[in-house]
């Protein structure tokens, strides 16, 4: 079944309030698609009831280890950040539909654009695209230098452009301010971040093909509670469920 009890192998702060948690155990082997998420229980199910949807950032199949990055912002994720090595974390997943990497012709390049805590799944995606021979460029947007993470790791996969709102690292501005130059080769676009950013990316991308992964507060995570819906004009129902129809959608498929 898709419910797993995974053991914490490390849980460390890698940037301001950003934690990298590594979990190991049976079940990791099924986490093959980038863009999917784990629905993670943070506490003992009493005070903090709901699970947190966290994107898969990386998977090491040999060590049976999955990496999740999250921001410790509220009480729940702060509790998660206090988990010690050896403690067990209850996760559902992998859930949702991940990125479709078969759509990219190997001759084409890919532009991966992430903002803030939307950045992590692009790491797993970038590795997978590189493995099939696609040339990958990243544009990663953070608030400031102190909030940035994984930049050197992304550079190992492909060209990495960083933007910060305050200009303390890379280009001062938003991810869209750095897109222009990278659009020349008509890459396939993959983007993860808050809806406002995705909307701006979609507008900037114009007619290019691409995929967007949406963030939303979720309830069940499996499509039953209708908490995380998004309007669409491309389906008869008029909506999609982000958790089970997504979180990844083709560009233009949903109304942001």
């Amino acid at each position, binding site marked *: 079944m898709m419910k797993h009890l995974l053991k914490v192998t490390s849980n460390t702060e890698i940037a301001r309030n950003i934690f990298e948690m590594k979990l190991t155990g049976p079940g990791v082997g099924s986490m093959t698609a980038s863009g999917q998420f784990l629905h993670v229980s943070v506490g003992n*199910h009493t005070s903090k009831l709901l699970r947190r949807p966290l994107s898969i950032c990386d998977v090491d199949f040999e060590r049976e280890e999955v990496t999740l990055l999250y921001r410790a912002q509220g009480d729940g994720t702060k509790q998660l950040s206090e988990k010690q090595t050896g403690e067990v974390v209850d996760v559902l997943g992998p859930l949702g539909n991940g990125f479709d990497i078969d759509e990219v012709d190997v001759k084409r390049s890919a532009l991966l654009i992430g903002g803030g805590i939307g950045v992590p799944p692009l790491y797993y995606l970038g590795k997978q695209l590189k493995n099939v021979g696609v040339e990958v460029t990243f544009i990663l947007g953070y608030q400031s230098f102190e909030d940035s993470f994984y930049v050197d790791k992304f550079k190992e996969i492909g060209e990495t452009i960083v933007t910060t709102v305050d200009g303390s690292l890379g280009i001062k501005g938003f991810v869209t301010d750095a897109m222009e130059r990278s659009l020349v080769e008509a890459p396939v676009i993959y983007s993860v971040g808050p809806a406002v950013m995705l909307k701006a990316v979609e507008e900037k991308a114009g007619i290019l093909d691409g995929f967007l992964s949406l963030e939303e507060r979720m309830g*069940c995570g*499996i499509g039953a*509670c209708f908490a995380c*819906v998004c309007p669409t004009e491309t389906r008869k129902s008029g909506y999609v469920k982000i958790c089970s129809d997504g979180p990844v959608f083709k560009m233009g498929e949903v109304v942001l």
Partner: protein
Amino acid sequence: MSRLSVSLPGLNMKNPILPASGCFGFGKEYAKWYDLSLLGGITIKAATLDGRFGNRTPRVAETESGMLNAIGLQNPGVVNIIENELPALKPYNIPILANIAGSTEEEYIEVTRQISASPLVSAVELNISCPNVKKGGIQFGTHYKSAAELTRKVKNASEKPVYVKLSPNVSNITEMAQAVEDAGADGLSMINTLVGMKLDWRTGNPILANKTGGLSGPAIKPVAIRMIYEVSQKVSVPIIGMGGVSTAEDVLEMMSAGASAVAVGTANFVNPFVCPEIIEKLPELLDEIGVGNISEMTGRSFKQWKTPLSSR
């Protein structure tokens, strides 16, 4: 009959556990996780006459030992539910309790007429307690005259027994319960969510796009227990208890308060397997307290002085 079976109007259940409306969709998502025929029954998501999109997001916010939701009765409409959703539940051969909602009396009546005619529907749950829609819902459920009148009309339109789902957002739930019982309700479902609100302290803005939402989860269980305890002593129709139930112990507590069956809501989001896990554990707990059949638990809190369990 097994020791877990319970019998309520229209609902012959092999155990007293059913998922609560709105927390289980129309079942198909959870059918991927376990065999739904293990359940005592299933309450499907509220049906309205036409499809509804519901409220803007965010629609959920976590609170201490609970959560707020403001989905807004999103559903594909009664015809779609009858044609596309109900048939998928047929193979599980469990009673289906169909929750119905509307903006007007006419809508409630028409939805009831259509859905209660489906051979797959065992009973109707009249939702007069949804706090998250502007028209209908809780409007009918907070004035006992309008609740009674709607109950009477829905009962007349229904081919199946009618359970009225009561709102806790009233000053006197017992009066409400008696009013709908007098109007012909075959049973009660209680409680729906409590209206609540959560703000982002940094911005002052509500977390939910709808601003307010319905509070559910373990935080509301004591309220549900108290209300079921009071109401069950004043009415003669059976009660489907709900409100924060997450464990087998909670189920027996709620039955002791007066419930004849128990619905599990928010806990399904926490643990998709919670219903079968509760069902599996119930016999063990009954053994521990020396109770033979689970139906004996109903109303034990106020009945125990008449027939003390210790005298068995």
